[in-house]
Each structure stands twice: as structure tokens, then as C-alpha cells.
């Protein structure tokens, strides 16, 4: 896990009905995604309907996922339009397809730095940035945990 400084000045999420279990899990450094109770497909972000089975009563439950995925695209941000990121510039954002389900895509920072040897298909693992007391934001790191598993 990568820990960053507390009170970074970055804007923090305001959990609501649809997201509070996600942020509660993230605070514990667990990536949890919404699973439809009807078809068991994972979805992010959850909405009023399930995009997979169409249920209007999906009763989404947030379940932990492996956090393993592959890079589908990336960008290096050199100018931020939000406050609180100035000290981090430039930084890399990655578009990740998670291992749990084809097409399950999430976006986060790659914590290996802007010069990281990223490529399409590169394996990544979830990591977390502690941006404020009790608030952690999911991010990613190249391959580390995958290698650790292989060593076990």
C-alpha cells in the first residue's frame, strides 16, 4: 500500500446513499464494487437500474474485488483543473479493466510516477491514497502485488 501525506488539500468525496459503502471500504483500503443482487454483475457507478439485467430494484451490495486489472489507456496530467493537485503534477491517470468482469473499467492515479513504464495490457493492482483523515481514494500500482502472489 502506498501512503501519502494527510491533508493534501485535495477535494474529498461526499458519500451518499449510492456510494457510502464504497468510501467506507476505501477508507479501510479495500476496493469494493456494487454487485446487482438479481444478476450478480458488477457495476460502477451504481444507478437506479442495473445496466446488465435492467432490474429497477438491483439492491446493489458492495463486495470486495481483487483489485487486479490491466491498463487499457493512460494520460499524464500536467495541468490540473482541480485544487490540491499542484504538488503532484505531473501525474499519471490510468484507465483500468478489472479482472473480475470483461469491460469493467475504472480510472485512478498510477502511483509509480509519471515516468512509469506503462503499456496497454500491463498488470496493475489497486492501492490507496489517504487524502484526509478517514478518506482514502483508490489508485493503482504496476504489477507489485501480482509478483508477490507469484512468489508465494
Amino acid at each position, binding site marked *: 500500500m502506498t501512503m501519502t501525506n494527510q491533508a493534501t488539500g485535495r*477535494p474529498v*468525496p461526499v458519500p451518499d446513499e449510492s456510494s457510502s459503502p464504497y468510501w467506507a471500504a476505501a477508507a479501510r483500503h479495500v476496493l469494493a464494487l456494487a454487485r446487482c443482487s438479481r444478476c450478480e454483475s458488477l457495476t460502477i457507478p451504481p444507478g437506479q437500474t442495473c445496466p446488465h439485467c435492467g432490474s429497477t430494484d438491483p439492491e446493489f451490495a458492495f463486495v470486495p474485488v481483487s483489485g487486479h486489472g490491466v491498463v487499457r489507456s493512460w*494520460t499524464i496530467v500536467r495541468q490540473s483543473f482541480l485544487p490540491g493537485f499542484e504538488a503532484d503534477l505531473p501525474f499519471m491517470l490510468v484507465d483500468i479493466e478489472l479482472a473480475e468482469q470483461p469491460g469493467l473499467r475504472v480510472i485512478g*492515479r498510477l502511483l509509480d510516477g509519471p515516468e512509469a513504464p506503462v503499456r496497454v495490457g500491463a498488470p496493475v493492482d489497486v492501492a490507496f491514497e489517504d487524502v484526509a483523515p478517514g478518506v482514502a481514494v483508490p489508485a493503482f500500482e504496476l504489477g507489485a502485488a501480482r509478483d508477490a502472489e507469484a512468489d508465494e
Partner: protein
Amino acid sequence: MSGRFAASNKVALVGHAQSPVQRHAERPLGALAVDTARQAIADAGLDLKDVDGIVAASLFPTAGSHAVQDGVSTVTAGWMAEHLGADPRYVAGFQGIGQVSGAMALAVNTVASGAADYVLFYRALHNPRGSYHGNSMQSIEGPQQWTAPAGYFGPLAMIALPYNEYLQRYGATRESMAAVLVEARKNGARIPWSYWHGKPLTSEEYLAAPTLVDPVCRYDCDIPVDGVAAFVLTSAERARDLPHKPVYVSGYAHSAPAPRRLPLHWPLDDIIDGGAETARRLWEHAGVGPDEVDLPQLYDGFSPFIWFWLEVLGFCPTGEAHRFVQDGRIDSDNPGGLPVLSGGGALGNGRMHGIPQMLECYLQLAGRAGERQRPKATVGVACQSSPHYGGAVVYSAEPF
């Protein structure tokens, strides 16, 4: 049941007006919009009292911390109805995506249904003071909480991800985009009302610009502006009695609902697969195909959209657009070229959304493009936004 538009070529554009496109207009946007609307009505040979319909889209497309104020930062159809001085019996605003193509479809349907006989259509865009997309938020509510806490925010990052996905997948480079910018700015430099009038861009200047959100540099983004364009629509029958040659609306299409994604997340496959469906609907609706189009005006609010539209509309194979745009093949001065940016687009005019594309179709097909008039312009396409999150309209110089 055929997918051909039942009112294909039965509604026509009969007049227009375009304000100067400036970084900051000297007059309030609402006043500029009313003046431009009245000019368009006069251009069509009509009086204010003839106009019985008003249709517009009024999205203010900023991610920044700017208040939306009717008549100042946006001009809704309702605001226009209160200030124009006409007495419309039908007033409607388009709320969907692809604001110009979408609102045009609404305007065409208004005439075709008989809800109004003479419809004013306009788009008014505003550039607020301060950073256009800069936002000072300290906490993030609603949908953006899924992405913005990680620093994924604003449209540059939105387009950067699929742009880089394209570069990686097809072995393209940022150098391949220079031809798009040079063409847009060459044509924009010839347009008197353009912000970029007299200011072409060289390939060297483009490539020397630092990237902001890789691989996007400032020139890949249309510049925010104040500007208004207005058009008048009526039936093809009534159009015969008006002074200018009518330009017929053959059909239109909107994108199908896109896969549910995180806010501003547009994977390349969503764009291309969704865009292919948009194109299929468009050709079916209009009753033409890409081979019959000699004035394709592709959307370019961000430069990669040119590549994406070229591919989904069938002007080149998937993955080939970065090569297709080279060697004069999109040069509007090349008799054998495909003039996809002859009107300068948004990159060559300023952030007027789909207006430069629509205006070029109108001017060329009506034979009113002056020194820029092309020898052959019969069927045009005006695109807006992303192929999977926007729309397009087909225009024709003759009914068919």
C-alpha cells in the same frame, strides 16, 4: 418500415446570420443573440411577425465554477421568446446530447409537423471570465465523486484517454494530428468572422506546443469564445417564395445510449462501436451514403474527433484515419481531397459547438460561400460532439 425520414428534404434552411466569434464580446450574450436572430430573419426575407417557432439548445459546456445565467452565459429559447419581439406559438429547448444536431432535428420536426411555419434556430456560446474549466471545489458530490477525487476531471482528460488508446492500438503518434490542425486553421484563417481569422497554424507551431494532459495540447482544443449563429427554417414549399436558394434537410441521427461508464469515461471502443451505429442510422434516415457526400463537415471540438468521425462514417477503415489525413487527402484546396474541415470547424473558428459545420453546409450548398465557394457541393454532413455521444445532420442542395 423504412428508416428513411418521412420528412426527408421537406424542410429547408432559408436564411442565416453569424456574429463575430470573439474571446469576449463587448455586448451581453443575450443582446448579441437577439441581434443575430433578427439578422437571420431579415436575411431569409421575413419579418419578425412571420416567425412562429423558436428552437434552441442552451447548454453552457463548462466544468468550471461558473454560474449559469440566462441571457448572460446562456440564452434559452424561452429567454429569446421574451426578447425577440416575435409572437411564437411554439418554443422549445433541446436538452439532449449533440446540441446543434439535436436542436436542428427538433426544429425540422417542428416545421414538418406543422407546429410552426417559420422556425428560428440559434446557438449562443459564452466564454466566462477566468479559467473555463477550472474548478475550486473542496468536496465532490454526486456522480463526479467516482472520478474527481483521483484527479480525473474535465474534458481534456476525457478525450486524452481514448486519444492515447487510439495511438497505442494503431501505432499512431501526436505528429499525425498536425495535418488536422493545419487544415482547420488554414480554413479558419480565411473566414472573416472566425476568432482565428488571418491566423493559420504551422505543423511546427503545433508540435512545439507543450502537452497539458498528454497527448492533448492547447491547439487540440477549440478555444472558448462568445458567439452566436442563427438560422431560419421553413417548409420546402414555402421556401420557394423566399430570396435565397433553400438548403434541404435530408435526415439526421443521434447516438444510441452509450454503455454506462464513470463520468467522462469514453473508452475508444464505446466511441467507435457507438459511432458506427450513429452512422448507420444517419445514412438510413437521410437516404444517402458516404460516397454521395461531397461536403463532410466533421466535428472537432477536440482534434481526435476528426479521426473518429472519419472512421465511423466510412470515409476510411477503422484504425486508418491517422494515415488518411496525411498527404493532402483532407486538404480542401486539393481537388481530389475530402474537405472535412473546409468550414474551419471548431478548431479554426472557436468553441461554437456544431455551428461551423452546419454553417459551412448551409453556405456552400446555398451557393453563398463567396470567395470560399466550392465548385461542387451537393450533399453535406454536419457532425457534432463524439460519434457515440452526439449526432449529425445531412443537408442537400437539391431534394431527392
